């Protein structure tokens, strides 16, 4: 009997979501294929590596829909990153826009999908930390089930992976005004893990006082670093922040890094402190 790996891949290309879910149910070992850009680290000159059984989502229009609610937008997980940029031109949170623009390059973003970026194996893609900060929710559908997870529930699990037989179908992005936004990414997938990180910060001020401030770092091998206690301490503070307040914030961030289960590298620690200092110095009244 031939080895399973030596057989040509079995590719299914469903046209609807129920069809895709039925296929996943019928072939429990099948793997989903979206844009196919998540791991271009294949050997030089080799064919694309398809799994043994593939459920390809490129024809599933149900996954490319956008729905507008009063205070949110639902994005189909099968939308390409450039489609998200286009569709949400007027609605897109500016930090999310920057994160998308920092992901790959134009031609790659015409293939890469929102769902693909979020469901990479073993770690979060570029967009999850931003979605976490703006309070996005994620819908997973199975053949007979549907569930929504908040970004916090997802980050507790450590990664955004559908259960067997499930597909990430929609991402609900709340529409809130964040006049102050910062996004910075250091390194890409060719950079060593301990030299990569991203930072997102959002803030809102009124009459010289902070209404809300959110700050998150993503250290790929360590995880997400978000200090909600620190965020709460800034609410009601006057901007620009007093030097003593900024110093205390840096100290808190430093302590939070020490509390992580996997310690950040020296480089990451240094960048986290540097970026925190910079963000806090930039927030002024509108």
């Amino acid at each position, binding site marked *: 009997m031939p080895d399973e790996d030596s057989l*040509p*891949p079995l*590719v299914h*290309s469903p046209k609807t979501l129920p069809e895709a879910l039925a296929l996943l149910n019928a072939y429990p070992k099948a793997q989903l*294929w979206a844009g*196919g*850009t998540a791991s*271009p*680290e*294949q050997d*030089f*000159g*080799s*064919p*694309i*590596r*398809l799994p043994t059984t593939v459920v*390809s989502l*490129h024809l599933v229009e149900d996954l490319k829909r956008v729905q507008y609610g009063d205070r949110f937008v639902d994005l189909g997980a099968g939308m*390409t990153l*450039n489609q998200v940029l286009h569709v949400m031109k007027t609605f897109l949170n500016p930090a999310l826009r920057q994160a998308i*623009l920092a992901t790959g*390059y*134009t*031609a*790659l973003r*015409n*293939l890469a999908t929102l769902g693909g970026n979020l469901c990479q194996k073993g770690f979060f893609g570029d967009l999850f930390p931003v979605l976490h900060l703006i309070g996005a929710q994620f819908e997973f559908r199975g053949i007979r089930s549907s569930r929504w997870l908040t970004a916090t529930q997802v980050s507790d699990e450590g990664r955004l992976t559908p259960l067997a037989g499930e597909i990430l179908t929609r991402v609900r992005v709340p529409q809130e005004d964040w006049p102050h936004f910062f996004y910075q990414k250091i390194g890409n997938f060719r950079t060593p893990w301990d030299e990569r990180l991203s930072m997102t910060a959002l803030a809102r001020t009124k009459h010289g006082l902070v209404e809300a401030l959110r700050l998150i770092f993503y250290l790929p091998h360590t995880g997400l670093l978000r200090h909600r206690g620190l965020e709460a301490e800034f609410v009601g503070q006057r901007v620009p922040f007093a030097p003593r307040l900024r110093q205390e914030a840096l100290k808190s961030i430093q302590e939070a890094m020490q509390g992580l289960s996997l310690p950040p590298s020296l480089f990451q620690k240094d960048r986290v402190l540097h970026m925190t200092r910079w963000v806090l110095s930039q927030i002024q009244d509108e």
Partner: protein
Amino acid sequence: MKQNLILNGEDVTLEGEDEDSLFAVLKAETKLFSGIICCQKGFCGRCHVLLDGREVPSCLVPFYQTRLREVVTPEGFAATEEHRIFRQLLDEEGLVYCHQCTEAQIFHLSAYLEQFPAPQEEELRTAISEIPCRCGSRPVLERAVRRLVALKESDRAGRR
């Protein structure tokens, strides 16, 4: 597996495996991309095609996904009026042509402007930097692209 698609405006039937890349099939089955060495990882920008009007790295597109879809390669684009105009602007700006990246740049930037017709200055610079190039031709490209953007804008205004 044989598969029908529209290639540079013509209905064609090409043969390849599901997991072959579109680039590999085009190279093996047609005379397109002859002499082009691609990184096969989506980095080099030399294998880009338009797939249903959107620029993609053909080395990352599995052949099975192109069934009945429309593919335009840089060779197909080179026969268009748009290409002629862009090339003329590049000539006027004094671009020295390189075998490695010039055609890939023309193809990429034309596709980019089709998708994002009114880019901001920063976005345009980023778009120009997306095709790896060691020729030092970026300032020339930038001038030519700016003129192309202005030309397209006045064209659109004329139509309104």
